[in-house]
């Protein structure tokens, strides 16, 4: 068997894509300047890191866990990358420090969840608060400044740098998408997420897979933090605020079941894009900014409710 047995009809993911296309179409009519290259490129560049985080979150959620500490991990990785850069390290060193930091933080989560068998929401709540407050205690809000010129855009200049950031995220997402359908290790994630006990009896090691999920999430966070940091010339330690909400919302809107075991990565791409165009759309449509949270909440609830209604109607679907 080459790939997972497909969903009978990707109703859920398909609907998100349709809504996304409709929204973009409407935006194109109501506020065409959204699609001007000068607006589109920076927007896509800002979405790239979120896509990576959402991808990592996808695997975590499919594995029936959750990670609400990604925002704080993101901030730490960004600051450490910035510090490495300002200490004069070359690019491989900077990248390594961000990736290793993310990996370490993710592994910590994984150890607590898989090793101690603690619930992931509580563990990541604790790590989120601890990481955030400790970073605040260290930086007190101060930017990491005076980074060398080679930091921004990897030293490649703006247009090439933007291409690279977007391409890197997209490429990685595509690779992971194909891998998630083809590689057995990802099939195991679906298995563990569906029914960990059955997976264990079938010979898998749920604890190791769960650990791997969090470590992988951390790794992707480190990468995303780097891709985000190179867009600027200094690092704001408050970066990443609200990132976990964005990622989880994108994954859920994209059709991934929070009860684990189901979901497709291309739904996540649609979810990310749909939620990411909201803040900018408000500016272009000239709507007042205080509607942003309400609309975001409505999108999430509608997406989830629609799934619920669909599931309630179709018979024999167990979750």
């Amino acid at each position, binding site marked *: 068997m080459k790939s997972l047995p497909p969903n009978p009809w990707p109703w859920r993911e398909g609907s998100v894509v349709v809504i996304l296309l409709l929204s973009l179409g409407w935006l194109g009519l109501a506020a065409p300047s959204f699609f001007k290259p*000068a607006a589109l490129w920076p927007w896509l560049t800002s979405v790239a890191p979120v896509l990576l985080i959402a991808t990592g979150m996808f695997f975590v959620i499919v594995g029936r866990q959750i990670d609400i500490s990604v925002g704080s991990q993101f901030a730490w990785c960004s600051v450490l990358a910035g510090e490495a850069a300002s200490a004069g390290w070359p690019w491989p060193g900077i990248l390594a420090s961000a990736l290793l930091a993310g990996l370490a933080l993710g592994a910590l989560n994984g150890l607590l969840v898989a090793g101690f068998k603690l619930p992931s929401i509580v563990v990541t709540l604790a790590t989120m608060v601890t990481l955030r407050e400790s970073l605040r205690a260290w930086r007190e809000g*101060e930017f990491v400044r005076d980074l060398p010129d080679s930091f921004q855009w990897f030293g490649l200049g703006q247009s090439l740098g933007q291409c690279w950031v977007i391409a890197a995220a997209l490429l990685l997402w595509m690779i992971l998408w194909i891998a998630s359908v083809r590689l057995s290790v990802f099939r195991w994630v679906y298995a563990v997420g569906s029914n960990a006990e059955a997976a264990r009896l079938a010979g898998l090691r749920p604890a190791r897979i769960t650990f791997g999920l969090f470590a992988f999430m951390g790794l992707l966070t480190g990468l995303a933090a780097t891709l985000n940091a190179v867009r600027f010339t200094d690092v704001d330690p408050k970066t990443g605020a609200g990132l976990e909400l964005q990622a989880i919302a994108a994954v859920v809107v994209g059709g991934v079941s929070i009860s684990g075991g189901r979901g497709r990565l291309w739904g996540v791409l649609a979810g990310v894009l749909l939620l990411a165009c909201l803040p900018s759309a408000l500016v*272009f449509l000239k709507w007042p900014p205080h509607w942003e949270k309400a609309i975001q909440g409505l999108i999430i609830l509608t997406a989830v409710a629609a799934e619920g209604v669909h599931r309630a109607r179709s018979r024999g679907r167990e979750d």
Partner: protein
Amino acid sequence: MRMLCAGVFLLWICGCSRESATSKKTAPSDGGSASGSMTLAMMPKSKGNAYFISCRKGAEEAAQELGVKLLWDGPTEPDPAKQNEVVETWITRGVDALAVAVENRGGLSTALRKAKARGIPIVTWDSDADPDSRLFLVNQATPQGIGQTLMDEAARILGSQGEFAIITASLTAANMNEWRREIEAHRQARYPGIKMAALRPCDDLKDKAFAEATAILNAHPQVKLLMAICSPAVPGASEAVKQSGRQDVKVVGLGLPNDNKRYVKEGITPAVILWNTADLGYLSVYAAIAAAKGSLKAGATRFQAGRLGELEVRGDQILLGKPFVFTRENIDQFDF
């Protein structure tokens, strides 16, 4: 289990009786060691802001000069109730003076009045509480002064006609709303030809300010000036202008010189408005301690504050001075 409950309760009672036996007075006791050094509790609006770090440096300097113990703490979360909690804890702890940068005037004034009733002298700095809840306000610049300076600089860049956009931290931030009102009032009075095209919050995040600025530049191409009134937004907006390649758009704002040196020198940000934040912290400490010692009384018109020399006292406001405009010519002289 019940034994443990009882045990914990007994511990508490013993502790209570021990403490109340030794400190029964309601007035604040000695703040520090037996040598009688005073304790000043100072609170910024929020701790995670580089603006307040620079204020703290001045405050620490003054505390050292005066030989007082400085307690610096404040909310790390945006919830308005957090400032109250900190003040209430300090009342319990007993401090010799309070210096507070008020985030929520209505809410915090109640707690300050309670402190006042306990005999703790209170000074507000950076933003005010209700006047009856504190002795003095250490004012770096009035909201009018700030709003007018911002609008004047904007007009200097735009001319008599044009459109600008404001990027603020959050729509609920009280002081920024006050500044916005002053900006609007001044605009209406002096520069009716200039219009505000958009107002966007950035949640005090530089990255978000960048995104909002980029969106504004593209959604409102006629906007030629971005006015960023919270300190992370100024470099965020400037970077957005730089990356957009638009030479016709400029940025002004309230920010720290160090964050903006690069953009000021490149001409993207012709003016950054602020005041010497370290001096603000320094003055606040001096004023609070002087009020506590009684050397600064109501009705004074002049106040001697250490290395700052003699400053004007207008009513119950001690004025640091007018807002300062950092430009390409002078920004290198400052390091905060």
